[in-house]
């Protein structure tokens, strides 16, 4: 009912300016892959902390956007990064970007946390408290070029589609929530997301499997 206008005044995807305050120099997905290799092979802490310095603030920001209170966002972001350290040996750079893996880890931890908060009440007999959501580092071949190309496509999305994507990924809003907030029919929300997704998907099928 109260559209948060200030939120929308942010630039669409906080554009891909590679520079950020805590990064002395920008790094590509390739650089991160090299750092991860060092973490995996030798348990290199310097490499890990470079990954940490870059990604921790982003993961924390993402989690805050999903509505986590500050302390929880902080805790889950720490946990997410620690998983990279623990599972570094599972990571194969040729098969997926570090950012995608981290995204999946943080999202899953966030969902788990919400679920725990909701279902502290007794589970049915024989139920398992933890759900699906395995967080393997990758589920499909993905090249560096894909990552860059996808970033470009995201920037080119029409405003409405960009907004639907943003509300989905940055605020974890359901179709009905988006529909209610924007005063759009549910079908329009779904078709907008569908179109955005298809636009972002083109040509990745060419890469292996």
């Amino acid at each position: 009912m109260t559209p948060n206008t200030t939120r929308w005044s942010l630039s669409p995807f906080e554009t891909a300016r590679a520079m950020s305050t805590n990064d002395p120099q920008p790094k590509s997905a390739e650089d991160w892959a090299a750092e991860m290799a060092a973490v995996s092979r030798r348990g290199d802490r310097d490499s890990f902390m470079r990954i940490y310095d870059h990604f921790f603030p982003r993961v924390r920001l993402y989690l805050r956007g999903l509505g986590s209170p500050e302390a929880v966002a902080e805790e889950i972001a720490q946990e997410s990064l620690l998983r990279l350290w623990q599972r570094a040996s599972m990571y194969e750079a040729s098969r997926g970007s570090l950012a995608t893996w981290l995204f999946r880890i943080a999202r899953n931890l966030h969902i788990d946390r919400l679920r725990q908060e909701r279902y502290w009440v007794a589970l049915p007999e024989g139920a398992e408290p933890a759900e699906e959501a395995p967080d393997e580092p990758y589920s499909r071949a993905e090249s560096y070029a894909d990552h860059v190309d996808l970033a470009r496509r995201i920037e080119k999305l029409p405003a409405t589609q960009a907004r639907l994507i943003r509300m989905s990924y940055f605020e974890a809003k359901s179709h009905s929530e988006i529909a209610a907030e924007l005063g759009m029919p549910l079908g329009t929300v779904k078709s907008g997301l569908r179109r955005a997704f298809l636009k972002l998907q083109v040509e990745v099928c060419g890469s292996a499997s």
Partner: protein
Amino acid sequence: MNPRHHLDEATLVSYAAGALSDGMRAVAATHLEACGHCREQLAGAERIGGVLLSQRQPGPEAGGLARLRAEMLARLGTTAQQRAPLGGEASGQEEAAGAPDTDLLPRPLRPYFGKSWRALRWRWTAPGVHMIRAGRPSGDTLIMLKIAPGKSMPVHSHGGAELTQVLKGAYDDALGHFGPGDMADLDCDIEHQPVTSPGVPCICVAALDEPLRFPGWIARKLQPLVRL
């Protein structure tokens, strides 16, 4: 099992974004377990999340970094790194050993309905219809339905979002034949009348996303039937 009816792309995006309600998430995950095509698509949707994550620009207000950094360094010292798994990762312990246990419910449904098909406690709700409703402390509705073979369901359309995954048996409607593994991810204005196939009962799991803003037809329709 090679599903022919898949998740809508819009649903996949929301799944990837962590934006589905718990019930819808469980139903979508059940389909994903059975469907390589949708897993591929999901990977694409997650890549979008990865790109968006890496594009976030934390502002200067992001505080506490020195403290958190020190804390992380300390944890590295006490946290072992896992060795590379041998010959791929076993995703499920119990399934890994020997023949698959046919009594096991799909993994994503176990938190809500338990592990075992045999232990399910079906409740009669209407002639030829049995149901189990997952205990849902909040939000959406998650149900398993068992419909006798050769039975026709009332004509209905979908006011809110609804995901239905066929687990056993099959049904037909205007959209086609839906067998085990198939997903009915229906748009709101589709009206249909499912008729279950002869032979075995059709067992489905369905999630209805019903925020308060949508006092849906579903509740009204099913109310006399299932006492929602």
